[in-house]
């Protein structure tokens, strides 16, 4: 049997009530496999930040989790406004968050840099008016 597990989740934009559910679910799966605690934490932080970006800015997103004994790969593919200047968005402190989002404790401009910091490999692609796609890879060993 192939040692690969993949599963898809959906995140709905503006659904603050569900925010964090997908990252919690992914975290639960990793713990069930006995993945090391510090790796689980990095994946949790990266996925949570990505999930919050979808909730705050996009219409919706499909999250695909792919597990192998070597790595954890998470692809977040959203339908949303897209990012005009990725290089700028990757800078710490840059944010387009509204004051309401800041009120909730988000929008410090640390989301994308934080995702990158917690990934072993990070890819980002975006089309303005269509959406953004993030690929997060974390190695298991």
């Amino acid at each position, binding site marked *: *049997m*192939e*040692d*690969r*597990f993949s*599963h898809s989740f959906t995140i709905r934009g503006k659904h603050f009530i569900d925010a*964090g559910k997908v*990252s*919690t679910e992914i*975290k639960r*799966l990793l*713990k*069930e*496999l*006995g*993945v090391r*605690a*510090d790796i*689980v*934490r990095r994946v*949790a*932080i990266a996925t*949570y*930040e990505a999930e919050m970006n979808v909730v705050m800015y996009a219409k919706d997103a499909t999250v695909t989790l792919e*597990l*192998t*004994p070597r790595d954890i790969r998470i692809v977040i593919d959203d339908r949303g406004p897209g990012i005009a200047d990725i290089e700028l968005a990757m800078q710490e402190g840059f944010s387009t968050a509204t004051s309401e989002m800041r009120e909730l*404790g988000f929008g410090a401009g640390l989301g994308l840099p*934080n995702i990158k910091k917690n990934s072993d490999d990070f890819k980002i692609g975006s089309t303005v008016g269509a959406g953004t796609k993030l690929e997060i890879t974390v190695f*298991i060993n």
Partner: protein
Amino acid sequence: MKCLRICPTEALRVRNGKATLLGDRCIDCGECVLQCPNDAFVPQTSSFSDFSSFKYTIALPSPTFYSQFGKGVRPSTILRALKAIGFDDSYDVACASESVSIAIQEYLDSNATPRPLISPFCPAIVRLIQIRYPNLLENLIPIESPMEIAAREAKRLKMHELGLKEHEIGAIYLTPCPAKMIALRHPPRKKHSFVDGVIPISDIYPKLVSALAHSDDSNGAAEVRGLGLGWSIVGGQVACLKAEDAIAIAGLTNVMRVFDEIENGRLKDIQYIECHSCPTACVGGSLTVENPYIARGRVLRMVEKYGSEPCQDRQKIRELYQKNFFSLIGTIAPSPVQPLDDDMSRGIQKMHKRQQIYDMLPKIDCGACGAPTCMTFAEDVVKGDAEAEECVFLTMKTFESMSTNLLEVVGKHSKRIHRGIER
């Protein structure tokens, strides 16, 4: 079957009509003890006679204890009544709670990270962290519980006063929950505890009620004082602190939701989280007698009456803190749930298989198979602990397709037979 769904960590199964507990998942919260209509789960407890080998016994009533008796019964009267029912002495744990609160404040003031810090006094919460949130072990405040501090202090005083040796004095905690009892028998860390035994509040209650009936409430004894009296209710610990960003959470589902947020890197601006596994904190423990809301009301009135005046000298406690008087002895190690497989490759295969089985299940979590959810059932099947046929829905489906096939076969044959007759 009631217990299946109540268990917050999905540790229960009903197999062959008997409820069983998956030890690596149980956090000793006591919910099943409270909810089972058939008393399938009875915590192992001690009784008075178990302590007859001690020369001298001291009762340590949990602060919850004071809330179990009628309106207006003073804590000092309760402490005295404990001596009337056979203990050589009693020692107030609420006062130790006040000292521990001061120690927490000192720890918060002198350690900037990590945040938020988590209270380590509910043993079920500590187990939950060991099992499910090992990342948060570093957030637990490394300070001993009021129970331990009280036992140590009570013994020290008596050793000094009566010239006894430590092992000759039995310190017996009167507990509101099984978690404290199990924590003593199987401590989360290797160390010597000063508590020698634990008796459930519910066991000692009848004796104490009759002792109280004969006691005089207008005794001359000094009243128990201080905010430590409030430690048995939600928010009792936070009320003792000066930290502005301290919060109290009760109920395991709520606690787990907050722990997930912390693991996701949130809540770093919160200083301290007081956590209780029971929704109404210790007054709602499964070994208490009084309705938890009535008990809570009594605690609030007690705090109002006796709380404003501290029982400890803050400066003295600070000095003790500096001397590591309150420091947790030993470290609490992670104790994760058994993974799907020890081998990552096989674990991933099992996860895949589990999903395939789950996709065939009705996903209504009926519990008829003896597992709490369809997902846990799928996992039990993958692990070889259950058979897929134990799901009534799957079995019905199999019967359905079998009977459809059978009807088809019968249909075909009957046509052939009819044709044969016609010829």
